[in-house]
């Protein structure tokens, strides 16, 4: 479904991604892990058009989408969230939901409301998004990406900085969507969350893929342990 091939990207001489090749199968929940600064977010940025790849390509369902603008990437069917949640603070929650909408207002509103109910913040639909708590913002960002119904969803640390009960809540929502056939690529530090959710995990280190495979195999891979050596693997915050 989503594939990168030999992607390279550097910032001021530091190579953030080097020959990075990953593959996300249709209808799977893929995990992307690695120590801080290993290039996970950079890879997200390259895929979604926020950063330009210096070499290599990105394919969505076989079509080359390398280095096209973020709005076009989204139109083609890739939605994403950000590590530091980015919502529209002076728009109401409902207006946030409608930014990505394309069709008639009434129908869009109805679907948006349903989606807010799904993530559990429908009661705040008329509040300004800037007044939401951090966890609610995470849910709102998830909701407005979901409402646009992209084929692939890239989630950047959905469990980062939220309390444990909300982490479980978010995981449950992702499982439900997965069951409905959605494709996910998730960056996460919370190992429990990743291992419990993903079908397949890719490990990045210094911008290169060091391992890929089902969770239990990756968990025991020596290279992964090396990559995390000295890192506090389990700590998510």
């Amino acid at each position: 479904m989503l594939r990168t091939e030999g992607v390279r990207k550097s910032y001021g001489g530091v190579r953030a991604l080097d020959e990075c090749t990953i593959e996300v199968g249709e209808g799977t929940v893929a995990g992307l892990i690695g120590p801080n600064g290993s290039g996970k977010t950079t890879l997200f940025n390259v895929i979604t058009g926020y950063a330009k790849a210096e070499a290599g390509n990105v394919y969505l369902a076989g079509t080359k989408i390398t280095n096209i603008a973020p709005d076009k990437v989204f139109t083609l069917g890739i939605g994403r969230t950000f590590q530091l949640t980015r919502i529209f603070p002076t728009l109401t929650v409902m207006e946030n939901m409608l930014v990505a909408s394309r069709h008639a207002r009434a129908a869009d509103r109805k679907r948006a409301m349903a989606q807010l109910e799904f993530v559990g913040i429908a009661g705040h639909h008329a509040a300004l998004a800037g007044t939401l708590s951090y966890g609610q913002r995470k849910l709102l960002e998830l909701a407005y990406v979901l409402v646009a119904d992209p084929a692939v969803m890239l989630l950047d640390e959905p469990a980062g900085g939220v309390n444990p009960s909300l982490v479980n809540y978010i995981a449950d929502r992702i499982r439900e969507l997965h069951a409905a056939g959605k494709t996910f690529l998730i960056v996460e530090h919370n190992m429990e969350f990743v291992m419990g959710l993903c079908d397949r995990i890719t490990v990045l280190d210094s911008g290169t893929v060091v391992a890929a495979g089902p969770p239990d195999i990756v968990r025991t891979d020596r290279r992964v342990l090396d990559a995390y050596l000295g890192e506090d693997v389990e700590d998510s915050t």
Partner: protein
Amino acid sequence: MMGTVTRQRIAAALALAVLAGAAVTFPLVFSSPATTNYGVYALIFVTAVSAWNVFSGFSGYISLGQAVFFGSGAYAVGIAARDWHVSGVAVFGLLPLGAAVGAAIAVPFGLVALRVRRHTFIVITIAVFFIFQLMAYNLSSFTGGSVGVSAPFLPWTATTFNERFYYIALACAVVMIVIAAGVRRSRFGLQLRAIRDDEDRARGLGVHAMRVKLAAFALSAAVTGLVGGVWFLYLTQVQPPSGFDPLFDLSVVLMAFFGGVGTISGPVLGALIIEPAQLYLTATYTNGYISEIMLGALFLAVVLFMPRGIIPTAGEWITRLRTRGRPAVPAAAAAAAPQSAGKAAAGDTA
């Protein structure tokens, strides 16, 4: 709850009707041309400030180059009337040309300027503004150089003249307010406001930011060009420093912020108060300096005590009155700027 909404709607409709009635009957009640003159300028600024607001207020791109469109609209009408020998009432037929020229300039201008953000955008608009003013000076065979262009003489009495211009300006203002309200309700307006909050994020949600910004810029430019033409015919003359006037740019921004940037009624109110007040103070305090100091002090007072403009601040007060005793969530929400709101909210996770 529905009752409250309905009651608000009725109150709003009534208020609008009163306002519209007052606007239409104003020249009949105060027929002195000395008074209607204030009305004409106030309405020209209502239109220009609302037009600025539809682009800058909604998108957050502060343009200090609106005079480019204002002056170009004025010159377009003037040059066309001069070269095509249009005289009498027929000159009003040239006003759409002012709008067309405004929009036609906005497209290439926007394609260049809208690639950069914040301060750099502001400075590019200032730079383009000066390029236009210099062109008006230097392309003298076309623009008349420093002498400028004069409008055909309309043989009307003072009262008729002002009254007709009042209604023309009122029509422009009403059309612009309706457009602004329409944009704010529309998906287009939502996208503009999303761009203001976080442009990159909005792009990641499929908002074609350049197209949206450019459309708003051109719309704003067209209306500004249109009233530039009206202003020219009313003043009967345009010269480079008056058509392309940096103080016009600052006044427009000032009026929008005074009333409440990004709202519909704020810019209207800002223009209705400031333009006449400025004209009145300048004329009256003939010692001159005092009027300047007073004007400066007034602006400072507004910025310091109503930092978000009259309309949002008044709105907050109303909300506070209504929700006395209850936590005023929307008011607090409106007050919270994104950064500080973010910080505050980050402290307490759900």
